[in-house]
């Protein structure tokens, strides 16, 4: 790779100049033609609100949404990792049917836009699952209980639990295809000798996978999995379409009630950026520490 220059070149000034001109143009259009009234003052209140009755600070729309986004991402991430690992193993199976099913799942998900996938999964699968297991009634019962504190900590408002769990399932199914590909690449990156050594000891296929191949494969794919998790956090905004009350959904709500379109979306963009960028820095750091 060429060494990166550390001093500015005259071309850099041109690039910066063109960018600045473009930004000012957009700014001018908004100011001049839209006659938009900026009102940044209301935004902080929608993140944290002082509850005068209780006398304490409580999360308002945006922070509530952010917390839900974090919750949904974590649960969907865990579920996607499990499903993806199964899928990745299936992709490497000797059985043709298993391999073809896994391949079909992957290709279908890869070649349909995420929004469409989300709707299909929602109506055909997670709705049915929620209904079949009577999750709705179960969650209501918990919500009515006195000591639902632990549940609320993990899942937020229990009355919204069925919708949230649908979101988690849908998102996990969607991401599992990509996790599966990552896991497959990990499994296939393990030298053939490892599998031969395991088999020559007389190990079963299950033991070989569990004790020899997967531990090594998963360790190798931690960096791409971390990246996929960041993608998952961003993709979670799609489930606002099926009324999961995460950050994007709450922002739409906020815009509808205050008409502070620009302020609300810029704030939301900032919140997503801070969340994802911190994750990215965190993973980079962990990776560096692990390689030491």
């Amino acid at each position, binding site marked *: 790779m060429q060494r990166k220059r550390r001093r500015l070149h005259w071309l850099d000034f041109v690039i910066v100049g063109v960018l600045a001109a473009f930004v000012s143009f957009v700014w001018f259009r908004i100011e001049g033609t839209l006659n938009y009234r900026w009102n940044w003052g209301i935004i902080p209140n929608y993140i944290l609100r002082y509850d005068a009755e209780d006398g304490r600070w409580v999360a308002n729309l945006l922070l509530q949404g952010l917390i839900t986004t974090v919750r949904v991402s974590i649960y969907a991430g865990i579920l996607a990792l499990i499903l993806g690992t199964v899928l990745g193993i299936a992709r490497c199976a000797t059985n043709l049917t298993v391999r073809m099913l896994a391949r079909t799942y992957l290709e279908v998900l890869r070649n349909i836009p995420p929004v469409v996938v989300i709707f299909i999964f929602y109506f055909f699968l997670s709705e049915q699952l929620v209904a079949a297991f009577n999750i709705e009634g179960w969650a209501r019962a918990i919500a009515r209980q006195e000591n639902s504190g632990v549940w609320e900590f993990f899942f937020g408002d229990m009355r919204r639990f069925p919708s949230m769990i649908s979101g988690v399932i849908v998102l996990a199914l969607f991401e599992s295809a990509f996790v599966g590909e990552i896991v497959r690449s990990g499994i296939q990156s393990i030298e053939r000798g490892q599998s031969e050594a395991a088999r020559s000891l007389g*190990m079963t296929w299950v033991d070989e996978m569990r004790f020899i191949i997967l*531990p090594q494969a998963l360790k190798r794919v931690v960096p791409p999995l971390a990246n996929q998790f960041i993608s998952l956090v961003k993709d979670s905004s799609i489930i606002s379409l099926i009324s999961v009350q995460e950050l994007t959904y709450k922002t739409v709500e906020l815009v509808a009630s205050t008409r502070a379109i620009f302020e609300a979306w810029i704030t939301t963009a900032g919140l997503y950026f801070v969340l994802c960028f911190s994750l990215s820095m965190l993973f980079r750091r962990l990776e560096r520490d692990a390689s030491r």
Partner: protein
Amino acid sequence: MLDRTPIIDIRGVNKFYDGFQALTDVSLSVFSGQRVVICGPSGSGKSTLIRCINRLEEHSSGQLIVDGTELNDETRNIRAIRQEVGMVFQQFNLFPHLTVLENLTIGPMRVRRASRRDAEATARKYLERVHIPEQADKYPSQLSGGQQQRVAIARSLCMETRVMLFDEPTSALDPEMIGEVLEVMVELADSGMTMIVVTHEMGFARRVADLMVFMEAGRIVETAPPEKFFTNPESERCRVFLEQILSH
């Protein structure tokens, strides 16, 4: 020896890799306690042959009987045979995410259902036998090539198999480490282990072999006891090969 049944009986085995014939009508009988050394130019099918014995490769036709069990598609047969036939690889193939001790105990614990205590006791015994008891808690990457290969031999020994296969065990080693591995193998041979060894180490072969096998182009060209094999081989090809390999 004549009235005993061989522990490994290979009868007219052929092996094809799409279009290419790797083994042609190979027959060989190995008896318990026998040490067989297979040599020949590279690509002659030596490795393929011994990899067929524990079914890392599938033979295309012919019969392969190990310890009275015929090798076929039955998974149970294959696993039963692998439990009686250990293998040492050219590239060691130790499990890099496990310590030396764990490398040695995982087979007995998962396959033979041994308790951890028993498995560890066995492991330490065999580590002693390959002269590296002090390395038990290290990871393979912290060991030299010669030490790694000795761990691999110990890993096979821990399964207490009746036969051991060696697939060019010293070919990936630096010259100064070949000696220590061969020494362990000689000791093993002296203890009466049934061994089939693919190697170019003719000094070792002369020292331990009961039977020399020369292969070329997928066929067994010559089978002879070492005295005859090294002094007066029958086939011209074998003579030329030995001259080339012994001249330096």
